[in-house]
């Protein structure tokens, strides 16, 4: 079973984002290309068909796309955060100059 945890720093950022948004928050793990594979934190996100919830961090569900579930079957994922004032991800924490990243 894949498993997802969060660092204290990332959890604090998630809570800061939560306090700024009223909608439903979702994290999806995806990426590649220019943004790197990383968590993406969205408000009122339409979760793609077949994406599965692999856990919750700071009360926010974390989804894996259908295509990745087999690949990540045994993955132990840790969601961390870095300072990144120049991210082009549309992930909500970027508005705070932060970027969620995966450690494993």
């Amino acid at each position, binding site marked *: 079973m894949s498993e997802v945890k969060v660092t204290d720093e990332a959890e604090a950022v998630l809570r800061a984002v939560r306090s700024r948004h009223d909608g439903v928050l979702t994290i999806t793990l995806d990426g590649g290309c220019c943004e790197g594979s990383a968590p993406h934190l969205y408000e009122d996100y339409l979760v793609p068909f077949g994406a599965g919830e692999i856990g919750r961090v700071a009360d926010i569900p974390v989804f894996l796309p259908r295509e990745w579930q087999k690949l990540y079957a045994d993955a132990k994922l840790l969601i961390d955060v870095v300072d990144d004032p120049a991210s082009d*991800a549309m992930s909500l924490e970027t508005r705070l100059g932060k970027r969620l990243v995966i450690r494993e």
Partner: protein
Amino acid sequence: MEQYGLFIDGEYRDAKAGETIKSINPATEQPWAEVASAGEADVDDAVEAARKAHASGVWRNKSYEERADILAAVAEIINGQAEALAVVEAQDGGGTIRKASFADVPGAAGTFEYFAGLCRGYVDEEEFAETVPVASRNIVRREPIGVCAGIVPWNFPILMASWKIAPALAAGNTVIIKPASVTPVTALLLGQICKDAGVPDGVVNVVSGPGGVAGERLASHPDVGKVAFTGSTEVGRRIMQLASGTIKKVTLELGGKSPNIILDDADLDTAALGACYGTFFHQGQVCESGTRVLVSEKQHDELVDKMVSACDRIQVGDPMDMMSTMGPMVSSNQLDTVERYVGLGREAGAECVLGGDRPDMESGYYYNPTIFTGVDNGMRIAQEEIFGPVVSVIRYSDDEEAVRIANDSMYGLGGAVWSSDTERALSVARRLETGTVWINDYHMINVRFPFGGYKQSGVGRELGPWGMSAFQETKHIHVGEDTPDKIYFSALFN
């Protein structure tokens, strides 16, 4: 430090909130430029400038010949400033000066030249006489969409901006470009270049700013009719969701994990070079990189030996040095991603036969060309896009299996087939589920031909007449006979 403003309505200006982003030179890890960072209000201003310019007819009412002259003038100015632009590009993104001088800047000029050529003699109306179901004249017209947003990545900044601006202008649209936040400068310069070439104010606007603010606003704004995006699949998915609010047209050119298939009759000396070129060019930060090299069991060892030897001729170093053929990764985040995947590859049992480490440099986000063998296509390093100088060599037993492995991917952007038998290579190429296939070549994107992805590599096509169509609406005008004798009205009237 150099300062650059947003380019809105024909002039450079600061962001309303006074926010800026510093662009880090990836070779020195030091900021070298400070650019205005657009907030939502700045994006709204740019959209309004573009909307007004479109409504005024100042661009869409120009003849195709006039548009062609101006697009050709843009190309000429880019060529005139080529050296300076190449230096900016190398400092901003860490690509080598060799790449900037021979690929990015001439490619940008060539894109404007090509779409200028497409405008010359362009016919935007076709007429068809019909008798079925009734006698009628039928006119099919190509019209501009209106305000088009182009959101571009950091790997080929001026070239990707040109891929959006040139066809959009050729088709008669107005444009807002959002460059990547780590490489904003050449796109901002392109704003003034367009103006100097004769593009009226408000027709081309450039707003640097974070994707989560400026990009999101552009993708959502009701006055934007089309979004053309190049970048990651996940951001593309989000843009598609945001664009759905007002049913915007979208073109998405997204990630890839492209197969580079060496058939067992290929000339291995050339194929080995092609396998390395396909992955290590621009540090592997290229969406169509051939990051899965598929080779037959019997040629595997020889190919790998030749690839390892070929890498002796790659010089990782200062991007400003004309002898460097690989510069640094674009950012520390990108470097972290590469290191994480190399670790995952080792953990999964793949063998790292070259690289897997960083060169000894005083500064810069450098990473060595890295070759993994013993890779199974089901491993994460074979399925996920690393976007770094990491190639996975995968064995296959026959052509059938090569095709199956090649297509076993959520992506479908590029790919290649190497063979001394063109017909055999073509039969493999025809079966690949990807938007571009090169035979005995790699990275040969041609402005005259369509580029884009199957599956989760994208929607729509850029370049060539297909790329211009992506910036056009199609209108059918039916001219009925001017007669009271319309028998089909009897469907309603007794």
